[in-house]
Every structure is written in C-alpha cells, then in structure tokens.
C-alpha cells in the first residue's frame, strides 16, 4: 500500500516550476531535462526548467498546495519539488503500526517522482538536475552548515597509527564520530562540552594536553542531524571529563597538533572554539544495513558526495563517519531548538536550582512534534547544572533509550547524544516489562508500574537528602517522557499520570497549524489535582512543535515509527558490552547474525521461578508453542514461591503462571533487566536457549520470563544470505520453522490489518 502526503510549494520569485510524474515516463523526461540543462549557459541570468503540467495527485494534495505560501529564499537555498512519498516497502518488513494515526492521507495508485532543479539568481548560474529518485528528495533549507572549510580553519592531522584527527571550528555533522574540545566549548543538542581555557589570541603557544576527552555522537539520517555550535557558556570540566572517553594523545600527534594550531593562527578572525574530531569507526553500527536493507546508507552521505576539489573540503570529509553538510543535501533534516524550548528549560532550571524540593517536569504532546528531541535537549541542559537527573520513560512504543515494551527509571549523569539505539546500553535504575508497544491492553498494569517507578524516585531523593546534605547538591530533578497518545484512553492515562506524579511543570507541545494534534482545552483545568490538599499546582509551559516549521517538516518522513522500532530492536539484540564502553571495542556486532550466535542456556528446573504470558490466555500444555523463538522480557522476582512439580509422567514443566489463577508480575517485587530472545526451547534438557545482550552477572539475577506481543522482524531471523539461498544456515526452507514462502493464498490469509483512513463519500 502506498501512502502519500503531497506538498507543493510555489514560488513566485523564481520562474522554475516543478512537476510530478509517473514512473513510466521517467526516461523521457530525464532526456528532456538534460537537454534543457545543456542549453543553460553560465552567463544567462536565470533559467527556466521545462514546464510540465502537474498531475493532480488527489484532491487533498491540491487543496494543500493552495494553502501553502511562497517562500522567499536566500541565494544559497534552492527551491525544491516536494512530493513526499511514503512507501511501505513490503508487508513483511513493516510491522503493523498500532498507534492511532489521524488524518492519514489516502492511498493512490501511482507513484510520483520528482525532479529537483536548482537555480540561482545573479550572475553565475548553476543548474543541476538530479536524476529521479524513487523516494523523494526533500531539502531542508536549514540543514546546511554555516561553516565554509578553508585551509585556515581545517587541518587534518594524521599519526602513524592512522588515527586521523581533524581540528575544526564549527560545523554540522552526520554519521557517527567522536568530538573533543581543545579550546573553548561547543554545544550539541543542548549539551555543552568545553575545555578550561578559552581560545587564546596567540595559538602558537598552545600545548596539547596529554589526554583529550572525546565524546561519542551519533547522527544518522533516520533522525534529525546534530548541529554543533560554539558557545560561550562555562562548563563543569570535571563532569565532562568523567563522561567522555579518554584518549591518550601520542607524542607525534601532539606535535602535529601544535603545528596545526600554527596554521589555524593564519585565519583572519578569532576562533571561539577549536575542536577535534575523530572517527568512531569501530562501533560497528554501520553494519546494521547488512541486516536491515531499509537502513542502507543512513550513516553516510552516499547520494551526495561533495563535489569540490578544494583541499580543505577534502580534509573535512576525510574522517570516516563524519560528514559535514556543507551543501544542500537531500533527505536530511537538522535538529532545531526553537526559542520556546530554551526559555521553558531555563524556567525549570531556575526552579530546580533554587527550590529545596525536587522538581518534576512532565513532557507531553502528540507524536512527531519533537518530543524526543526536546527530552534530549532538556536532559543535556539540566546536566550542566545537576550532576544527576532522573528520567522516567513512560513511552513504551518509542522510548528514548531504545528498548521497547518497558517503562524505566534512569538516573542519568551523561548527556544523550544520539538516537535511541545509541542509548540502549544504559542501565536503568528500575524497569518493568509491559510487553507491548502500547499500554492499551492493560492500562492498569501500566499505571501500577509507573507508580512504582515514581516511588523508587522519591526514595532516591529522600536517600540523597539524608546522605548528601553536606555536598549541597540539589535534589535530583525528574523528567517524565510520556506517550504520544493523547486521545481517548491515552488521554486518561496521561491525566492519571499527572495526578500521581504531581509535576511542577508540564511542558506541552502545541501546534498552531494542526490543532487536532493539540491537547484539548480542558487540559488546563484537568491537571489541577482533584484533592484540595495537594500542594503542587503544575505550571504549564507551551512548546512550539517542530511540525509548525513548514520548511523543515516535510523531511524525514521516510522512516515510520515501526521502522525505528525495528532498528532499535535489532540493534539492541546485536549489542556487545553493555555498560562501560571503551574505544576500540566494537559496540555492536552485526556481522554475527542472531542465528549464528552461541546462546545462553537457562535450566528451568533450577533457575526459573515463573513464566508469564500477557494478553492471551494460553493453556499450560501449549506454552512452549508460544515461547519458542519469541522475544521476551527478562525479569527477577523476589519471592519464595517455587512451584515446579513434576507431572505423573515425570516431566518437569517450566513454571507457568497461568492468567486464570495468577496475576501479572507485581511491580513491588519485580525488576526487569532487559529483553531477550528465546531462540529455542530445548525440551529434552529442560532449558531455554536465550540470546540477550545482558552481561552475565546481570543474567544470573534473572529468574522470570514474560512474553508480551513484541515481535522480531523477519530480518532478524535470516542468516547472512538475507533470504537468498536454499535455506537458513543449511536447513532448507521447508524445514525452517516460522517462515514460509508460500504465497498469501486464500481469503483472509493475512493477519488483521488496520486501516483508519477510509472515508465515506458523504464526508467529501
């Protein structure tokens, strides 16, 4: 099924037009355009691209096209043709998204492609026609660096061991890399990193320190790109050094760095910040494209290599994994921080630094408004002033920390510098397994777990008060991230959470353009706590939604939430070394497929106290059919129950807590450590063979297994041949369980597919 939102911009200033085409006429039009391009001589003032008639895609598209206003743009920017094309590639790849989506655009039969032409006014004209792409290319006018590399501000330093380090001033980047401030400070997503010394006027005297602390950052194309800017703020150097990765600078490098600084001295202005960039090539995350072809190339800039031959440009692009966006690049979107966000966080900071009570902030709003970016920003800003902050992740479908189906309480002391999968190695203070990407099937259990997490936080605060009064540290503030589900049951859950958590500040997203996505007006009064004894009256601060920024909104629709979940789950299962991450180790291992990995074995007669299955009532005798090859949550329960009794036949069954007689794992006595995959049930030896990234010492604490409805995508089940070949790891396809090549035959042969956008004729 194809889904599309069409947005067309008209520009009255420029005379070029865009067009939409169908796939079949692709070749003919390419030829036309190339002919047109050829005729454009560099001297002429302006160029018109061939005018093609626009084929109306749908009535909706036409209406929206009329709504949008022409934008005037600066020289550097270009006008673009934006047909946004969302394509669910195949049924098998995309999970069915159970989130409630509003007003999704309707299906259309044909695929539209766009032609991008770039033209510039003024004397020199550059006309470049991009070849047509199946997926659209949209340009975010802000996603371009304000930095121009030149020989005086970019220097590449190489050492014998091929560790290249770039020394630069200011840029936006994409990919994955390590950054360290050498002088001055820079900020990214609100986190500030700096060295003690500001940039001196005479750089020649700079002596490189022995150890430079690098901070890892991830900025793939699946999310907004990180923007790095110089700042003036003073930071707590000690804190920063504790959180970063130390890198001993060898003598040759230091020598080269000193000479690099001499070069930098030649530039005309004064630098406010000088940073070093190093490759994070060993993390292994790029290999994820071996497993999930949907994410091919998200860590590099394959489709828009820089064309300039300038040595400085070449130098800046030399670090693998670090791709500054210097030219307009398609399909990328930059992370932006609107001013309302900054001011809201400032207000919270003032309160949290002055008040004696721990402050609570709750972030709420509909999906795709920037909640996740904002939570990162807020955490990073707060970490400047507080050594630790508490983060309650209540969004189980798109959590900030990569593990779906769980609610967690984190005590963070390091900034968040990447998309969710980059943070899934963090250990939670306490966590519970909900078993689904939405709480709709068991909202009571969801609320009970959240309550328990709040209790844990309050305990933490009171412990801190009793222990740390001498240090003068302010009580640990709490940031709560909630679901994007704000209608119906989701709204009720949000209200419940607000009443229980009693936040001091509610940060609500608001969109002026799409009011249907806003919280209802009654929200303001509903948040007032019902009982008159409550002391905390929450203050509502409104945040501008990123959707309101028309220019930027159109991008990054390429990836569905279900695609992100797939990426998160697959990279979680392929993680190495949870916990401490060192440079040089591979953080992810995508080379070894799940089917190839050596599993852990859990003997259920010895080490298992309970198995729960959520949402479906299963009979005991059928339990293993549900568990074999499934994603489960690994929990521990502190209780003395031991209920494995052998049946008369002598067979000891795994201890199943049937829903008819047993309740869900009680939050008061359980803790979830993470997810695992029961790759096989070995009945003859009474054990489960489990794959999980948890380290062994944590594993030994696990004594319970919970199955929800989390699913592993088909890509996780294949071997390195990715579906080609006669089978998986030598077992022919016919004998591989849980997969089938047989065509979908028979009516009703696919599982239920939910479609919420069918309209009636009477609605038009």
């Amino acid at each position, binding site marked *: 099924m194809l889904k599309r939102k069409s947005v067309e911009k008209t520009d009255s200033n420029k005379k070029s037009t865009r067009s939409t085409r169908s796939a079949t006429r692709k070749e003919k039009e390419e030829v036309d355009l190339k002919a047109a391009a050829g005729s454009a001589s560099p001297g002429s003032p302006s160029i018109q691209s061939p005018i093609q008639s626009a084929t109306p895609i749908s009535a909706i598209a036409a209406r929206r096209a009329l709504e949008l206003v022409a934008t005037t743009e600066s020289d550097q920017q270009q006008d673009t043709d934006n047909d946004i094309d969302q394509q669910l590639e195949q049924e098998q790849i995309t999970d069915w998204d159970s989130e409630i989506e509003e007003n999704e655009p309707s299906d259309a039969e044909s695929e539209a492609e766009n032609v991008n032409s770039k033209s510039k006014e003024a004397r020199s004209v550059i006309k470049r026609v991009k070849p047509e792409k199946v997926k659209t290319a949209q340009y975010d006018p802000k996603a371009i660096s304000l930095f121009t590399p030149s020989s005086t501000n970019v220097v590449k330093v190489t050492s014998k061991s091929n560790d290249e380090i770039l020394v630069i001033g200011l840029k936006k980047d994409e990919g994955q890399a390590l950054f360290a401030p050498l002088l001055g400070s820079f900020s990214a997503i609100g986190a500030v990193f700096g060295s003690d010394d500001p940039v001196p006027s005479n750089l020649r005297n700079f002596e490189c320190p022995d150890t430079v602390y690098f901070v890892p950052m991830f900025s793939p194309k699946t999310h907004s790109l990180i923007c790095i800017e110089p700042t003036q703020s003073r930071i707590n150097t000690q804190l920063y050094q504790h959180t970063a990765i130390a890198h001993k600078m060898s003598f040759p490098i230091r020598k080269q760095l000193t000479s690099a600084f001499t070069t930098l001295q030649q530039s005309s202005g004064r630098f406010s910040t000088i940073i070093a960039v190093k490759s994070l090539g060993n993390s292994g995350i790029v290999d994820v494209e071996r497993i999930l072809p949907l994410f091919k190339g998200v860590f590099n800039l394959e489709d828009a290599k820089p064309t300039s031959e300038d040595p400085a440009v070449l130098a800046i692009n030399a670090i693998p994994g670090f791709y500054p966006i210097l030219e307009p690049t398609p399909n990328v979107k930059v992370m932006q921080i609107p001013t309302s966000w900054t001011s809201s966080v400032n207000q919270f900071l003032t309160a949290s630094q002055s008040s004696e009570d721990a402050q609570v902030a709750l972030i709420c709003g509909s999906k795709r408004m920037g909640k996740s970016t904002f939570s990162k920003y807020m955490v990073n800003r707060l970490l400047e002033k507080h050594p630790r902050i508490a983060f309650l992740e209540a969004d189980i479908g798109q959590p900030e920390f990569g593990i779906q189906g769980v609610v967690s309480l984190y005590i963070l002391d390091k900034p968040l510098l990447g998309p969710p999968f980059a943070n899934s190695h963090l250990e939670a203070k306490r966590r519970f397994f909900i078993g689904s990407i939405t709480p709709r099937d068991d909202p009571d259990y969801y609320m009970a777990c959240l309550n328990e997490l709040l209790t844990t936080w309050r305990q933490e605060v009171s412990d801190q008060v009793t222990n740390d009064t001498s240090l003068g540290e302010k009580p640990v503030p709490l940031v709560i991230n909630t679901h994007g589900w704000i209608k119906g049951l989701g709204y009720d859950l949000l209200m419940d959470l607000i009443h229980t958590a009693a936040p001091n500040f509610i940060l609500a997203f608001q969109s002026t353009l799409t009011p249907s996505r806003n919280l209802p007006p009654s929200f303001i009064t509903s948040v007032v706590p019902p009982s008159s004894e409550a002391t905390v009256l929450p203050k509502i601060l409104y945040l501008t939604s990123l959707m309101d920024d028309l220019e930027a909104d159109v991008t990054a629709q390429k990836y569905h939430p279900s695609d992100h979940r797939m990426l998160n789950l697959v990279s979680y299962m392929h993680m190495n070394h949870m916990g401490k991450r060192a440079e040089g180790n591979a953080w992810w291992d995508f080379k070894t497929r799940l089917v190839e990995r050596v599993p852990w074995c859990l003997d259920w007669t010895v080490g298992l106290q309970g198995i729960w299955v959520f949402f479906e009532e299963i009979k005991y005798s059928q339990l293993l059919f549900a568990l074999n090859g499934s994603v489960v949550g690994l929990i521990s329960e502190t209780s003395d129950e031991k209920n494995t009794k052998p049946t008369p036949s002598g067979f000891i069954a795994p201890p199943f807590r049937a829903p008819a007689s047993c309740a869900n794992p009680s939050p008061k006595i359980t803790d979830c450590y993470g997810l695992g995959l029961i790759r096989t049930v070995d009945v003859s030896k009474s054990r489960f063979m489990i794959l999980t990234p948890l380290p062994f010492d944590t594993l030994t604490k696990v004594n319970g297994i919970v199955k929800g409805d989390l699913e592993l995508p088909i890509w996780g089940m294949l071997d390195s041949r990715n579906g080609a070949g006669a089978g*998986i790891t030598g077992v022919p396809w016919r004998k591989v369980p849980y997969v089938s090549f047989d065509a979908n035959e028979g009516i009703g042969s696919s599982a239920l597919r939910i479609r919420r956008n069918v309209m009636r004729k009477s609605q038009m």
Partner: protein
Amino acid sequence: MPRIPRIVPWSSYQELEDVYNMLYFDGPEAEYRRDLGVQRVKAWKSRGKVPHAIQMTANFIEVQLRDQFAVGPARISQHELRLMYTMSFVRFVNGIVDPAQKGQFAVSVSILAERLQLPLWFVELRHAGTHEYLPSLQVLRNGCRQALMWLHDFYWMVALKPDGSAPLTKSSMSKIRDMLGAYKDARKKQLKEMRTIKSTESRECSKAIKKIITSISTDVIRDGLIPVLIDIGGIVPAGKKKRPTTKAMSLSEDLIDLWSPLLRNLDINFGAFAEEFITALLVKLTVEEDIGIDKTLIGPFPAFFDAVDETDKNPAHSSSSYMATIAAWLKHFIESSAITHQNASSNVLQDVVIDDILEHCLKNPNFYTRYLLTVISNANSKLGESIQPFMSYIDNVLNTSQKKMASVPELNETDMEAELERLNSHVMQTKQMALENHSDRQDVVMSECNANGWSLYSESKWTACPLGCLPDGSVPKLEMPLELDFEPMVPESFEN
C-alpha cells in the same frame, strides 16, 4: 532483491495441517480434539501474525463447543450464546471485508461481500447484530456451521497444499524415474537425428520435458527429482567409460548435450532449482566420516524416510569416477557462468552463485573440492588471488594427511590423537578465516550450570541453526502433557 519469506506462527507445515485436522475433526470425542486445536491457535495468537481466517475458524469453533457442552452446572443462557455468536459473526465479516476496502472511499459491505463470494445473509446477520436486533439462536447456529464450511472452502483448502508435502512414496519415486528415463530416450533419439537430419524438431523430447515440469511441484524437486537426477543413470552415466577421469575432469559433449535442455527448462521454471541442484552436487562431493544420518532429521514422517532410503547411502556414489563426474559437472557450471552475458542464454543454469560453491569447498577440503577451487580461480582471477592462500594451505593439509597414510607410522594412540587435534584446529581456523568470523565474545568462563541455572552453550558443540531449531537443525517437540491443563494450580495471592 531476493525473495523474503514471511513470518508465520506455525513451526512447520505439518503443524498447520495438524491444527486443521483438529479443528475440523468429526469423529468420536471430537470435542477434545477441537478444543486442542482452539488452544493451539491461541498460543499462535501470542506469537502474532495469525491469518485472520484461522482466527475466525477458532472463534466459531470455540463458541460452538461452549454451545454444545455447556450443560448442567456450566450452563450458560441462550442470550449469552447469542451474544458470543453474533460477535464472532461481526468480526468474521469485518475481517473479510475490511481488507478489501482498497479505495479511498468506502464501498458498501454488501458489494464487497458479493465480490468475495461471501453469502449475503452473513452480511445481514452482521448488520443486524451491530445496529439492530440480536439474531435468534437458531439462525446463529446455522450460520456458524455455514461460516465454518465457507472458511473451509475458501481458506483452508487453498492454504493447505495437500500435494506439496505428501511423503514421497516408492511409487512416486518410480514415476519420477520413468519420466526421466523417457526424457533421456527422447533426447538421445533427438541427438541422433540431429547428426543425420538437419531439422531439430523433436516433439517427443519437449513433451517429455513438459511432462516432468508439470507433474512435479516445487517441494518434490529437492527430495524427489534431484536425487534421481544425480544418481547413476542420471547426469552420471551408468557406463564407467563414459564418465570423466580424475585426471582430466571434463564432461563429454554428449553428456552435456543430453542433459542441457532438461536442466535449462527446470532452471527456468523453478526458481530454486539451480541452488538446490548445485547444493546437492556439492554435498555428494564431501565425504564425511559419520554418514549415519539421524532419521529424525529428515522429516517428521518415518514413512517418507523409508521410501527414499535407497538413494542416500549408495556406496557406488563414493567411487572416484562418480565423484569425478559430479566435480566435472560443477566445473562446467562454474566455467559457463563465468562467460559474460552475451552468451547468457546458452548457459544451462542462470545465476549460478559462485560464492556458495566457494564457501562449500573451503569448508570441506578434499581432493575434489580442491580441484574446484582451482577451477574457480581460473575462471575469476580476482577471486583466485584472494583464495590463493587458502588453496596452498589446503594443499598442505591434504599432503600431510596423504603422507601420513603412505608411511607406516609407529605412533601410538596418544600421538595420533594429538595430531588429529592439531589438524582439526587448523581446519577450524581455516573455516573461521573463510567465514570472516571474528567474534569478540565476553570473557566468560563456565562449563557447568551456574547455581542460578544459567550457563553458556559450549562453543565447540554449537552450530548455527535457524531460530526455533536445535543445533542439529531439527525442531524440538513442543507438546507438553495435557494433564498440565487440568492440574489445579497452586493458588497464588491475587493482587488487586
């Protein structure tokens, strides 16, 4: 992009068929069988991706069972039954009709139902139950029976492939042999005619090919057709003189001509043929020490295994001339696939994946696979360079083992075992290099089961296998005793 399978909740086709048989069981004590089918479908629902039709079948049957057997103290009222039946009907009709709403605007349910051949009164029942009155119990019972029959005809009969996975009986194997024999004769005749008469028209030959293609389905190819093809009398001639020698492993032109049309047609008509054929050839080349195949590996039906036992452990297959022929065929495929695309249509098999052959040869070094490595490196010089170190290493290994056999060793047993260990570890290393398997595992030292029940599977005994399978490739038996369902559970304290 290669085809990707889809995920299904059953562990094998057999399980799907079993559930079908249980759900539609109609014999003595049917209620237990049908109930077991319903419970199995519930376990599947926990996995997700259960086809809608299967869910609906289980729904209806569950309500039917309640209707039939809720008597005495477990009795439920007629109204309750009507509610349950109606709900099943509503979900049934909606589930069939909604996916058919492909357009932008809603099409009326009755029109869609007509297109899908759903009886109209199902739609009326659904409409009545949702918007109007609750239908009567009699109508609902009747409707339930009809709905189950509809599902049977329109889903189950289509989804189940009763022919596909039928065990290969001796009679079907002999039929395959006959067809291949007919082909061989026809083709021989055609070739003879081609030498004398110019016209190459031979209807017999193409008829024979067509017969083979139409009567054999995809599943039978691997287990039925290919073993017969690579048996003596197939692509390996019965007469030893016609086989290539080990010195010059090239096939005679006659042999290639004899089999090319059939192989080409099979390749065109069955997408997986080329891969499975080459895999089978490669397997024949590798002589493993322990040939004793575990019967349970082959399939869940013992009858199946007995039927084709004859071809598996044929001692004649390990004769050097047989192996030479197989190797020569592989050489032919490798070399012809290395020819550029201009002559692609004249290749017998399209899309020969050299990498698979390479991998197999590297994993199982022996004389013939070593020869094939030479062939590969000759055909593709770039590839040849990269595998050169492996080839020389394998040469060393083979030479040492040969020398060992030549001389009369006076080693005692421990010495020999040490040698074997060393050789084994070397070969393991080669395998690992070939597969680029650098695993950076945690440093965990454990062999015994930890006190908490956790341990690591011993790496030396581990082999990769699909999810849901044991390391030997089989699917474990997941049934647990039914008495577990009836045991009174240890009462737990209920938390409100």
